[in-house]
């Protein structure tokens, strides 16, 4: 356990420079804005005094390195600036939108992991069967899929032609729900509003399935190849030789070792899910951070864009840390290495 503690400590220290690096990249890219951000914010007819005032307020009259230090200080205090459109604090705006994105991403990850791992296991256990061939063929198309197109096709089929699921949004506007956490599923459970729970779930199905597709395909392929690799090893042959059934060989002996690369792939895909969420939220009018970013880009609301990118990237860094830690838990060689 001490080894695990040391490992956690080391990884936590290593994450600090990454945090600074992420801040620096966001800062640098944000300064690539063509044109003057002050003029963009105030419009062409602003008075010179107003321009100077905002320039000083945003510290744009300082040299770049100094601006970065000020920016870093602000971010540490949770100050990401204010929206140009409605003067709301960026951090507050993100706070109200983030639960929707997390709910969607989490649901997609759940679908991708459960279905992906099960498909991979069955495909590996029945190598070269029709199921193996068919599932890997589908997986090839799955990870080549433009998910925005898949979303449109799912809407067409399941929302319009069959009418099974709603076309867009998170909740029917006729349903009342006390918003405590802004995680609608959690709110519905907390307040015991079963109707809202059912409706929120129905709204979640199509976006979650759309977003899960690419990750699901990758997880299925990785689980299959990783399990096949493990099943060839000597200790598995020993387990079979002592008369264990195939189900027990796979579930008790092979799976834990096969899971290590699978966990990595799941972790890495959180990034692609957070990116994919931007597209998915646009298709399904899902009021999350992704749509906020896209809307802010067209409104040239740079503080929102910058803040959202920063927060999503930092979430991704933390998720990667958690993946590394679970990796060390699964494979003792890593924490002692």
């Amino acid at each position, binding site marked *: 356990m001490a080894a695990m503690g040391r490992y956690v400590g080391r990884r936590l220290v290593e994450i600090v420079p990454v945090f600074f690096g992420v801040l620096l990249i966001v800062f640098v890219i944000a300064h690539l*804005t063509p044109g003057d951000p002050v003029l963009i914010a105030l419009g062409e007819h602003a008075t010179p005094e107003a321009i100077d005032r905002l320039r000083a307020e945003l510290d744009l009259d300082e040299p770049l390195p100094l601006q970065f230090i000020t920016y870093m200080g602000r971010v540490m205090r949770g100050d990401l600036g204010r929206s140009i459109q409605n003067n709301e604090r960026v951090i507050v705006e993100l706070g109200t939108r983030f639960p929707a994105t997390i709910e969607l991403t989490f649901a997609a990850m759940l679908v991708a992991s459960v279905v992906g791992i099960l498909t991979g296991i069955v495909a590996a256990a029945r190598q070269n069967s029709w199921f193996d061939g068919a599932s890997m063929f589908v997986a090839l198309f799955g990870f080549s*899929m433009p998910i925005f197109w898949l979303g449109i096709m799912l809407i067409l089929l399941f929302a319009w032609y069959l009418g099974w699921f709603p076309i867009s949004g998170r909740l029917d506007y006729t349903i009342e729900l006390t918003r405590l956490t802004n995680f609608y599923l959690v709110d519905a459970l907390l307040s015991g509003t079963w109707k809202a729970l059912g409706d929120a779930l129905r709204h979640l199905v199509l976006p979650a399935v759309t977003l899960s597709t690419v990750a699901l395909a990758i997880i299925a392929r990785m689980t299959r190849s990783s399990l096949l690799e493990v099943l060839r090893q000597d200790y598995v042959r020993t387990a079979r030789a002592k008369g264990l059934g195939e189900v027990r060989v796979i579930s008790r002996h092979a799976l834990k070792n096969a899971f290590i690369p699978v966990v990595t792939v799941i972790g890495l895909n959180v990034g692609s899910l957070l990116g994919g969420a931007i597209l998915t939220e646009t298709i399904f009018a899902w009021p999350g951070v992704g749509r906020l970013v*896209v809307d802010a880009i067209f409104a040239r609301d*740079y503080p929102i864009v910058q803040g959202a990118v920063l927060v999503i990237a930092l979430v991704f860094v933390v998720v990667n840390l958690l993946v590394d830690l679970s990796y060390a838990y699964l494979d003792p060689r890593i924490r002692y290495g």
Partner: protein
Amino acid sequence: MDEQALRLQHPAVIRPSVGFYTDVWRRLRRNRAAMAGLAVIVLFAGLAAFAPVVAPQDPIVQDLEARLLPPSMTHLLGTDDLGRDLLSRIIYGGRVSLTLGMVSVGLALVTGTLLGLVAGFYGRWADSLTMRTMDIMLAFPATLLAIFIVGIRGPGLNNAMLAIGVINIPIFARIMRGSVLRVRQEDFVEAARALGASPRRLLGRHILPNTLAPIIVQTTLAIGAAILEAAGLSFLGLGAQAPTPEWGAMLSHTREFLRDAPWAATFPGIAILLTVVGFNLLGDGLRDALDPRLRQ
């Protein structure tokens, strides 16, 4: 025994020497999936290259009499809300999408390979500085970083290419650095160094040619992924702008009349899907052909 007799006795030994890449091509040709992928790519690339000849109609000229027509003999894939022939738009759209994919990956290939080469060969601070920067770039979800760059620089094809190029740089740099570190240890590099080869000669003549296999595979896979990313950006309105026919932009536009003309949203998506599947199949095949030991 004279020389003639010797040659006749061992005909199998006298095999024409073939180069590495001839051998790779022979292995690749036997891989049916990879060949199918290559065929799809050649088909779309051919259609794109000869678009003015193959496309039945102009992709931009509107015909308001022929709005939202379903697929028929005159319009094989139907028309959109402005009466433009969808088949022609998809054929011309291939030009934009394939160019986007190749230019952006080309940018990443050149920059990333150079960075990886320098980092792997010179080591020390050059390595630390380059690779830590790459690590931090990888700390961003790729799509998010691309959207951020285009969002700040402004929507348009050039900025989309730039953004997709940038997000691919770290991948190439990492692969290249790994290969250089491996090859640098080989005896033939040591021998060349001992013979007094300059760093440039070592890199260009001895190290680079022996590190290309994984780069070739990555380039193929990355073009497919870049086409997907580019279509995503255009779908959000950040890439190709109207009236340029681009697959992602076409999808975004056709969403508004999805119910009346589902075909208009169906075919551009199939074009993207098939092209990307093509590049993925070819990439997987190349991986097997370039390194037969990896094959299971």
